[in-house]
């Protein structure tokens, strides 16, 4: 038996479950770096002497690979256990940076696509889902809290990576001044920064892999006591994707993410445009940057707060809030957002907190619907909704805004069609959420279900 196998990482008696969230955070804080990729954009454009679009592809490839690898490798992650998955994610993420660094140093953009985009993207997908199922098993009483803590780390990772990357580029290139908006780091500094980040993140993720354990009795899925969903549901991933519940939840996640991206994509120019009169905006570029910071905080906090709340008020009610209240807030933003910056910032911050909350709450929603039998693999398949929204959201917003002009030179009224479109998107998600019902037993894995019932009865007998 390899020390990486699931059977080898069964927690001994008395192993504290409070070591599992930091193990998960070590991974999510590292891979959350992807949301700070824009910090390299100007320098990469200058280094490769290419367009912003060509560099933008690096991020797009990595997010598409995240969705694809989570979907395709979800079952492998579930069966192999969190340590093997975290180790694989750490190696892919680290190698992705190293190959990307080689691409920058040699001026080969395709190596950056392959390294950071493809290899790193696979690390993102495996890393994202690797601790989720384990956390739900350790915290069957508070799955929303547990996954909220980990997925909060994905939001937090960007908060760390952005200033850290700027510091590293400044360290390797003394002429690089991060506070200068037009500053570009040299190719050599960029390559060294990528290399450093790759090594640091790999080491950090390996600590998570070393700490993680599966709960006692979960070394072998076929003999483990699983936490069933509503009505005792225990559903395998291959069967889950044949249920309307899975696809309704897919639509819910897709709509929630698409609507959030509607604001995130254009946050800085949007706030300046909303308060533009006679060609000049009353919101400075520095204040617009501050607004992006506020949204990052709201995104991170929403992941933890709303997901934890879902343990108390239920998953469906929580999504009624994300989509229903979110819809009303979006409408208020479109109609009255330009009345004051306080109103604008407050509305946008709550909307983005719902965006983050939607990511963090969805694993617990899946657990409620399908049970913990293969919840990690089902979660992986559901993340294709994120990849799809990552393409659809910017397409919708940019497509509508392109007709009226260029963000940064618009006024509040120009944003109204895009924002009202997002109200419609949220309405679709709201209805999809209301249509979700418990999974009927025709989809259950009956062998696993009856074996699990026997194990639950035996436990209850033993504790009586």
């Amino acid at each position, binding site marked *: 038996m390899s020390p990486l196998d699931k059977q080898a990482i069964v*927690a001994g008696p*008395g*192993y*504290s*479950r*409070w*070591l599992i969230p*930091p*193990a998960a*955070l070590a991974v999510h*804080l590292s891979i959350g770096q992807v949301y700070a990729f824009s910090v390299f954009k100007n320098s990469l454009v200058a280094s490769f002497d290419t367009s912003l679009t060509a560099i933008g592809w690096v991020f797009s490839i990595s997010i598409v690979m995240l969705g694809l690898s989570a979907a395709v490798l979800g079952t492998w992650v579930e069966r192999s256990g969190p340590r093997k998955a975290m180790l694989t994610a750490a190696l892919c993420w680290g190698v992705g940076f190293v190959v990307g660094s080689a691409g920058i140093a040699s001026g080969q953009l395709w190596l950056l696509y392959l390294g950071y985009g493809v290899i790193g993207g696979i690390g993102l997908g495996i890393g994202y889902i690797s601790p989720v199922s384990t956390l739900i*098993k350790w*915290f*069957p*009483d*508070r799955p929303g809290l547990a996954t909220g803590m980990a997925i909060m*780390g994905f939001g*937090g*990772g*960007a*908060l*760390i*990576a*952005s*200033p*850290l990357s700027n510091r590293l580029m400044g360290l390797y290139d003394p002429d690089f001044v991060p506070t200068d908006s037009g500053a570009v780091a040299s190719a050599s500094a960029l390559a060294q920064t990528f290399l450093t980040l790759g090594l640091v993140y790999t080491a950090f993720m390996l600590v998570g892999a070393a*700490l993680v354990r599966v*709960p*006692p009795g979960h070394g072998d899925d076929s003999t483990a*006591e*699983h*936490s*069933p*969903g*509503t009505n*005792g549901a225990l559903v395998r991933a291959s069967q889950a994707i044949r249920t309307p519940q899975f696809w309704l939840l897919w639509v819910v996640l897709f709509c929630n993410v698409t609507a959030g991206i509607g604001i995130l994509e254009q946050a800085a120019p949007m706030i300046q445009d909303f308060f533009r009169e006679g060609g000049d905006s009353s919101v400075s*570029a*520095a*204040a617009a*940057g*501050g*607004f*992006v*910071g*506020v949204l*990052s*905080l709201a995104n991170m906090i929403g992941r933890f707060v709303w997901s934890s709340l879902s343990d108390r008020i*239920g*998953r*469906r009610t929580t999504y009624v809030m994300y989509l229903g209240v979110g819809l009303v807030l979006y409408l208020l933003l479109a109609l009255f957002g330009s009345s004051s910056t306080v109103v604008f*910032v407050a509305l946008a911050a709550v909307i983005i907190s719902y965006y983050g909350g939607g990511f963090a709450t969805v694993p617990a*929603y899946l657990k*409620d*619907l399908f049970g913990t039998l293969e919840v990690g693999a089902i979660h992986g398949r559901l993340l294709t909704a994120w990849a799809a929204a990552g393409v659809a959201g910017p397409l919708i917003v940019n497509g509508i805004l392109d007709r009226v002009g260029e963000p940064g030179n618009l006024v509040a009224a120009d944003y109204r069609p895009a924002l009202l479109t997002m109200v419609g998107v949220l309405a679709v998600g709201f209805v999809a959420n209301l249509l*979700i019902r*418990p999974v009927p037993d025709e989809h259950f894995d009956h062998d696993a279900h009856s074996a699990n019932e026997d194990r*639950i009865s035996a*436990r*209850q007998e033993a*504790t009586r």
Partner: protein
Amino acid sequence: MSTTDSTRPAPITSGSTTPPVLVALAWLLVGVPLAYGLWQTLVRASALFTG
């Protein structure tokens, strides 16, 4: 939508023998960089009110 307590495995909460120092160190390891990121973001966000 939630599972009933009777069918849910009991939370593994009691009888921890893990040294509290190890738990604290693990949280410090992730908490310190997160606090650094939060602080840097708060400084950046403050420009919204001062810029």
